[in-house]
Structure formats: C-alpha cells, structure tokens
C-alpha cells in the first residue's frame, strides 16, 4: 500500500485526497497546508470579503478520518533519494507518491510603501489569496490594483455592496489580455454602471497611510489597497529538489514532473508551455491523478491550451474562450468570423469558427449564448445554422408556420381552429357551446382564453356581410 503525500491543502489537494479514498486507495494520505486554517473554498473568498458569507460558510467538507491533514505545516524540502519530504515542524514524511499542489502566490509589485518592515505587507495593503486576507472588511475607499479576473470580480462585488471602489489597471480596458477593445469597452461600461471607478492605463507608484499615488502624479484616498496584480506559480520547492521548472513545475500528460514519483497539479503546474489557472481545471487534474494513482484507466487527458474566462460577476455576463491570439491569427481556410454588436444594449459577440465549430469566442451581455457557446466548444459540436438567433438566445426560425385552420388550439383534445370554426358554423355561437361541442378546453383548460377570443373574432367576422 503506497503512501501519498500532498503538499498543499487547498481545494484541489482536498479533492485529490477525497477522490483517492473514493477510488479505493488504502495507503496513507497526508496533506500539508501552510495555513493554520482547515481547507476552504478559495473561489468564494470575494463573498467573504463582502460579508455575504461567513468564514465558516466556505469550509470544505471534512476528509475521511484516515486522511492526515497537517495545518500550519509547510513542506520545506524534498529528499528524493530517501523518498521523504521535510516539513517546517522539523519532521520527515515518507512517500511513494508526492503531489505538489502548492498553488500560486500574488505578485507584489515593486512599489514604494507596499511593504512594511521584515517584508510584511504595509497596513491597509492586502492580497486576496487566503481566508485570512478576507476576514476583515475593507475600510474606507478601496483601491483594487489589477484589471485581471480577480481584480474585476473583487471590484464588482465590493461595488455591488456599496463600497467606494476604484479599479486601477495598466491596460486600455479591464481584462485586456483576454478580450478585444469592443468587449473591453462594454465591460468597462458595465463596471462603471455598477459603481466601480475606473482608472485605465495607470500604475500605482507609491503607497502611504490612507493614500496611493499613481504614475500620472495623482493621489487617491485609499483605506484598503487590494493587490490583484497577477500571480506567480510556487515553484521554489520543486526547483530546490532539482525538478525541471519553467514558469511552473513542468509536468507531462500524466501530471508527472521530471521525477516520475512526484506529480504536480493546479496553479503551480505547467504543461506544454501553459499554466492553466483556475480551480475547475485543477479539480479535473485532481480527478485524473486520483484515477491514475489508483490504477484506473485514464480518460482523455485535457491537454489543451484553451483558456475559458467566465468571471463570476453578477449583473453582466462575459465569456472569453479560446487559445491565445486566436483573434490575431489569420483566418484559416475553413474559418469564419461572426460579429454581433449592439452597443446601446451592451451586447457584443465575436466568434471565430473553424469548420463550423467554435475556436474562439468573446461574448458580453449575452448570458444564454455564453452558456451555449461553452457547451458547443467543450464538445466540439456544430454551431447552429442560424448564427444570429443562437447568439441572441432565441431558437431560429426553420420552418413556415402551420396554416391557420390546421393549427391546434387545444392539444389535450386535439381541437384545431378549423374544428372550432366548423362548430361555429353549425350553431355553437358562444364560448361555452364551442367548448361542449368540440371538447376544447376540457383538459388542462389553458386554451379557454383563446377559445373566448376566437369566438369574439368569429362573431366579428360574422357581422361582415
């Protein structure tokens, strides 16, 4: 029975441990998390910050009793020769399989005044990475630094709870690495309408008590400065152990590092040049690795370079999906581009199709299409022929309407307009008699208003000579 040690105690590590047991792994499982907290649902931190949820609400379900979870214990080294990890409490843990699920950390820009003594963050500055970061509510005007996914989500959520929020970002629009200028423009408008102050093209150059200064010389009042300025995969542990590291810890399709007994997944792992962030992806990797480590058959590995960006922003919908630079490549031979732009209503769609399948997409303000496009893309299905109907969220018109007199008025009793008309002609001149002679409206009864209306229509017709 093999022993599995998991460095990390986040949701992906947690999922891996749970799935290992569920798949029948009988050996020891040990998780080492550097936070003092039991594991929690990281994507819900914004809701803790805004006060929608308590810290207790975001705890993950307890793991089975026979899984050892060490909190406040960091893996400090890997002794590959003896197949052991060294931990911050001075102990060693033997492993047959080691899994690095150590995630990423928020990059702290090199800006005057962000750090206090001993490298800690200065008063009023915080990351949005751990539960500890989110326990205390934001005080005073809040400045969110960074126009990426986390910055946009946090600024939007805080504004919707009435906070005074300003989003400062270097690009022309928020999420400018993921969406084009039109989509970015609509996104900026939506954020602005939600009450977020926007400062595009700006950087923070300094921080002091109650204030940040920007690169154009302006100063902003700032009670809380939230750092959402990008993340860096945690690779030091792997690097020191002699494993191959690029931006993240390099893994193959089976999530193996250059040491086949050591795996990595989630935000710290890099496969084929890409660090695919996001918990949904990390969970999938955890499921796959649990399957591999328990001798199961691997399902199709999702070795993809496609990112799916779907911010959890209430009030407006945005989806960006596709490989990097999909919108900048020349159009392939079987390619097609579809653009739908309705700026007055805040709606925009741009699709790159390849052989009638979605290769890349940006959608704003089209919630139904956003859901549909993800499904079409994920399963490689043909897009509907009526592109406009499907983008605007209706089903297209494919066939003519049935001729009026053959159309069924009462499906329960199969009464058509023609039958009603015939009954009228034979003397059923009010709604009740139409009902009793045709059986219309004697089932579910919902066509009764129509029968009345049609009766009125027939009597009007009757008056015409």
């Amino acid at each position: 029975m093999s022993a599995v040690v998991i460095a990390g105690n986040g949701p992906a590590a947690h999922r891996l441990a749970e799935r290992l047991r569920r798949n029948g792994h009988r050996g020891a499982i040990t998780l080492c998390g550097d936070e003092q907290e039991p594991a929690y649902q990281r994507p819900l931190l914004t809701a803790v910050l805004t006060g929608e949820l308590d810290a207790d609400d975001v705890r993950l379900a307890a793991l089975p009793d026979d899984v050892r979870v060490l909190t406040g214990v960091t893996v400090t080294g890997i002794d590959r020769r003896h197949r052991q990890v060294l931990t911050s409490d001075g102990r060693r843990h033997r492993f047959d399989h080691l899994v690095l699920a150590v995630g990423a950390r928020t990059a702290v820009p090199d800006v005057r005044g962000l750090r206090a003594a001993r490298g800690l963050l200065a008063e009023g500055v915080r990351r949005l990475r751990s539960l500890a970061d989110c326990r205390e509510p934001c005080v005073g005007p809040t400045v969110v630094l960074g126009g990426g996914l986390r910055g946009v989500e946090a600024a939007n959520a805080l504004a919707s709870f009435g906070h005074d929020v300003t989003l400062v970002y270097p690009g022309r629009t928020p999420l400018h690495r993921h969406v084009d200028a039109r989509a970015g423009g609509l996104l900026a408008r939506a954020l602005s309408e939600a009450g977020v102050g926007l400062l595009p093209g700006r950087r923070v150059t300094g921080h002091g008590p109650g204030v940040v200064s920007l690169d154009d010389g302006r100063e902003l009042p700032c009670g809380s400065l939230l750092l959402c300025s990008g993340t860096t995969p945690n690779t030091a542990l792997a690097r020191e152990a002699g494993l191959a590291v690029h931006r993240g810890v390099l893994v193959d399709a089976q999530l193996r590092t250059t040491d086949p007994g050591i795996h990595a997944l989630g935000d710290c792992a890099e496969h084929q040049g890409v660090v695919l962030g996001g918990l949904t992806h990390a969970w999938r990797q955890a499921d796959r690795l649990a399957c591999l480590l328990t001798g199961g058959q691997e399902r199709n590995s999702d070795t993809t370079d496609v990112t799916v960006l779907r911010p959890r922003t209430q009030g407006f919908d945005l989806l960006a999906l596709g490989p990097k630079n999909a919108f900048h490549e020349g159009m392939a031979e079987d390619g097609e581009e579809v653009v739908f732009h309705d700026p007055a209503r805040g709606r925009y769609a741009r699709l790159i199709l390849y052989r009638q399948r979605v290769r890349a997409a940006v959608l704003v303000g089209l919630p139904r299409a956003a859901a549909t496009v993800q499904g079409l893309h994920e399963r490689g299905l043909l897009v509907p022929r009526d592109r406009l109907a499907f983008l605007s969220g209706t089903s297209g018109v494919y066939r003519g309407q049935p001729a009026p007199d053959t159309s069924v008025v009462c499906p329960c009793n199969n009464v058509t307009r023609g039958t009603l008309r015939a009954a009228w002609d034979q003397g059923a001149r009010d709604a009740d008699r139409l009902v009793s002679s045709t059986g219309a409206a004697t089932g579910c009864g919902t066509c009764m208003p129509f029968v009345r209306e049609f009766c009125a229509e027939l009597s009007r017709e009757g008056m015409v000579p």
Partner: protein
Amino acid sequence: MRGVREVMTHCPYCALQCPTRLRSDDEEVEVSPGSLSDGRPGALCRKGWTAPELLRTPDRLLQPLLRGADGELVPTDWDRALDFMAHRLRDLRTEHGSDVVGVLGGGGLTNEKAYLLGKFARIALGTSRIDYNGRFCMSAAAAAGNAAFGLDRGLPFPVTDLEDAQVVLLAGANPASTMPPLLRHLERAQLVVIDPRRTATARRAALHLQPAPGTDLALLQGMLHVAVVEGLVKREYVRERTVGFQGAWQQASAWWPERAEQVTGVPAAEQRAAVRLLAEAERSYVLSGRGIEQHTRGTDTAAALINLSLALGLPGREGGGYGCLTGQGNGQGGREHGQKADQLPGYRPLSDPVARAHVARVWGVPVESLPGPGPSACELLGMLGAPGGPRALLVFGSNPVVSAPHTNHVRERLAALDLLVVADFVLSETAALADVVLPVTQWAEEEGTLTNLEGRVLRRRRLLRPPGQARSDLDVLSGVAARLGQPAERFPTVPRLVFDELRAASRGGRADYSGIDYERLDAGEVLHWPCPTAGHPGTPRLFLERFAHPDGRARFAEVDHCDPAEIPDEDYPLHATTGRLLLHYQSGAQTRRISELAASAPNPFVEIHPDTAHALGLSDGELADIDSANGHVVARVRLDRGIRPDTVFVPFHFPGRGTANLLTGNALDPVSGMPQFKSVAVRVTAHGAAGETA
C-alpha cells in the same frame, strides 16, 4: 341488467385520477368529467375522454390461454389454467425452493390487488422476489422523500393548494402532456420548468431551464449555491426544522452558477433568476417529475431538489411545499401495500422486526415464515432463468417488454424461464410471450380503491360485468393460493374485505389507512392518509408541525454531481432521453388500442433539432436508425427546434422496432434501483445507411 346505469368513478390512467361519471345503456358507455372534491366541475384530457373505448376493445382477452405443445397460445378454462400453473409452481418450488418464483406487480393495480399480491407472494409462495414497475417510476423520489422527511407521500398537500401558488418549479415534469388537467391548478402560478426539451409545459413557463440530460444535479447544486450566496436561505426555518444544512452546502459550495453553467448549459443568470423567483414569492412550490429522477443518480438528484426546497423554507408550511408528481394511476397506493421488494403494508420496512411481527399477526402466520427483502425490479428481471435466479415469473399489471430498460435483455431473460404467467386484459407484448395468460378485469368492471398523487384514497366503482370469463386479479390470487394449500379465508376475493384487512395491516404504519373504509369514502368524505381512527379526518397536509423523523426535523442530504452512466462520445455522440406523449399511457398497451389516440399518435418517432438533423442529412418524416450500446431502434424523424441540439427524444409507448427501451441500459441508481431512462448516448443515422439493421 337493463336500462341506463351510472356510476361515479375515476379515469383509468394517471395518478391525478380525475373523477368521472360513467353512463351505460347496454350499447355504449359514455364518460363525462365528475366533480372535484370541492364540488367544482372537473376535466378530462383526451385519454380520459376516449377511455370507454378500452372497455370494448375487439382483442380483449375473454378466456385463459395456455401455450400448447406446438408453441401456440390456445384458449382453455380457468380450472385447467390454474391447475397447470399451481402444478408447475409446486414442482419448481419442491426442486429449487421458494425463491424460484418471482412476482412483478404494477402501479396501476388497485390497493386491494397490490396488497393481496404482496401477501400472496410472501405467504402463499414464500418468495422474497417480488417487486413492481413503480420501481421504474417513483422509487428515486420515494427514497429521497423518505430520507428527507421520514415519510413519502407524492404531494404532502392537496393538489388544489397549488391554485394559490405564485411560483411553481417543475423539475423534470411535463404535466401539460402527462396529466393535462393538473394545469388547471397552476393557472395563476408563474412556472419555472427544468427540461432539456421545450415541452408543452415549458412553452408556458416564465422561465425554462434547459440542462443537458443527466446534469440536473449540477443545476440544482448551482441553484442552492445561489440561494446561499445571495442570502435567500430561510435561516430560521433551517435552524429550527432541519438538520444537515452544512453538509449539503459544503457540496454545493463548489457549484457557483458559472461552473454549473459549464456542465449543464443553463446560463448562470437564469439559475439566479429562477432561485430569486422562488425565494421572493410568498407562496412557492417545488415539484419533481421523472425527468430528474430516472437516472443512476436519481435519488441524489431528488435529494438535491429537496435540499433546495428546504433551504428556501418551503416544505411543511401552508402556502408552500415540495412534492413529487406520481405517475401511474395507483403509483402512490401501489408503493404502500407490500408489492415492493422491501416493504410490508402500511409503507412499513420489511426489515423492521416490529413491522414484521405486526403484519405476521394480521396474516396469522409465524413471523419467521416472512421472507426478507428481495431484489429490485430490474435486478429481478436480470436474474430470471439464471443460475440461482427465479425460474418462474408471475406478472400482474405490467408490460416490461416495453416499459423496462434494455428490453432485448428482458426478452432474453423471459425466454430463459420455465414458466411465465401474465395476468392482463389484453394480449400485451409481455403476455404474448407467456406460457399462461389470465384474462382479468379492468377499471369499469371492478370495485376497489386507488390512492392518488396527493395521498387521497379514491373509490373505483363497477359499471359493467366483466366480459367473457375475465375475473378479478383477486380471484386469480385466491384460486392459485387455494391450489397451493392456503386456507380460503386468507385470500378473500371481495374488494371490501381485502381493504378491511389492508386497514388492519397498515395500522400504525407510515401510511396508516385504518380509519378509512368504503362507507366513509362512499359518503363522499375526502380522506388523505394517514387516517388512524374511524373518526379521524385524514391528513390533507403533512409536516405542518413536524416532519416524520423522531426528532421532528427534515434532513438535508449530502450529495454531489457526477457524470451519468453513459455520456456521449465519438461513437454515440448524442444524448437520448425517453418519455411520454399526451396521447399515450405507459407501455401503450391500453391507449394504442383506442382508435382516436392511435390515429393521432400512431408511430414511434425521434424528436430532433433541425440543425442536428441537417448535419446528419435527415429530413422531417423520414425513417432513422437510432443506435446505442444497448440496442437499435427505427423511428421517424420529427423536427423540433425546441429540443437541445445535442439531444434527441424518443417516446417509450411503442412496441416492436420502435421500442425506445431497446436503447436504454442496465445501469441502476444504487439507492433506489431506478434505471437510467432519461440519458443514454446514441447515434442517429438515415435508415439503412449503415448497411445493416436489426
């Protein structure tokens, strides 16, 4: 009998059991809607209006049939048929033991028949192997309801309560087709409908959520997530009337709506809108149907729906609630009186020593002689004729060759039996395979009771004498029991006497009928179980004070989504889902014999999105081959732009090569034994294009 006669009874079909007035003048039988419990006029759908034709169907079984040496079914008389049957049963039991006989009942049988069938199996045959087709129908919702509330009654409130609802969530239910008159009670409510198809019900909805088949659980988790994060949970109710919220939420906490959207295809914004509608109305109801239940995770999915209702504080109060829309005519009573593999009358667990002692006393048998729980319907069918499995099967009120999943397999198993006996009033597809066919009575030819979807006990009354030699199922059971050496008084044939015994057997059980009798019902009393004493008014609304668990609290369930047993792949790229049509009932054995219904819905079809059909080169009305890993179906293409493009729909009422259940597989819900009818991976091609067909 001469002259015009008239009785007040109920429609023979679905669980709504619409009241009907039947009149007969020796030539014709005429039906009209009766009055509802509050005196208002009732209604009928087209099935109900045309039901009298069933009473004079030309191929009605009039004599018992025995399969002769030449393999043909030939008419015989009752004595010969029952003697033969008893003789074979005795021989098989002597050689192989009591469990060599299996029994399959049905959710259309009256309470009296269901009760006596269970008793017959357990004491006359001594077999543990009895179950019924309600396993395909109500079992998942029943399991989830029992776990959550300590009691399972389809609607724990009168159906008329729905008339005051402001918002009703219909999860996997299409009552506009399956029980149209129900919609009369939903006229005021805004409907939220969960269905992969744009059904007749979905077309009337304020909001239609259209998830991919097999992903309902993820959708419901997303909705619970919304309720929690948006502060819509009724915290006080959750604290005072429930336990286990934290565990349910910990599972749902991973399903923020954007993630649920990726799995289900239901826009996050629509998930939020649906939950807000439900939470912000004063009077909301949540109703479950087969669409979310007939899956390998059916019980968990129904439990997730209950979790959502509990979080919103709906069950157990006036002006709100959770319920499940029972399917078959006596789907409710049929699951309470002992034809279910694990149950004794009164909805008592067969494994409970106290329940066993009580029922053994009523039956006058030693408690040790009662067998234990047996296999669920699909497991039972799967083991027929196999080593150690039943070698004889008795079927009452069920047509598994059409209605059970993976019918190729069912046919194989039936063929492996030494003895197949089918009691029915027409030669159903299953009866056609039997060694002995017993002609029994149908609705307007018999007395009895049924329990409708709201747990109300209704009287079925006799208008006509049974034609030919047709006999009641009660007579059949009594006749066989006597031949197997049972004392005659143990198997009464008068429905009223059987009901009185059922009352005694149910006394003190979850579904306590002991205060209900024919006199009270005939006097027009409206009685919902439990009704424990003669003076008790019945219980129209359950759980108002407390739920049925010992501590009075409802239970949240800790459930999570995982992929369905079959997901589309390269070979079978589409989801198929099976279901019902307005014009047919169950396996269609009855409704296909009614000329008007048969003429309007004569043929099997496959409903498919125009884009999908176009991509496959199929046009409206042409024949298509539908293949799954389990079997092959031929049906006509019917284009419908209301269905998801990744999904096709096949109605299951048809026999032969259009039998939808040729496609479905053997995978079962581990908790309830529910098969997966609503999600199977298929390939659709032009008929004959693949070169070979079955």
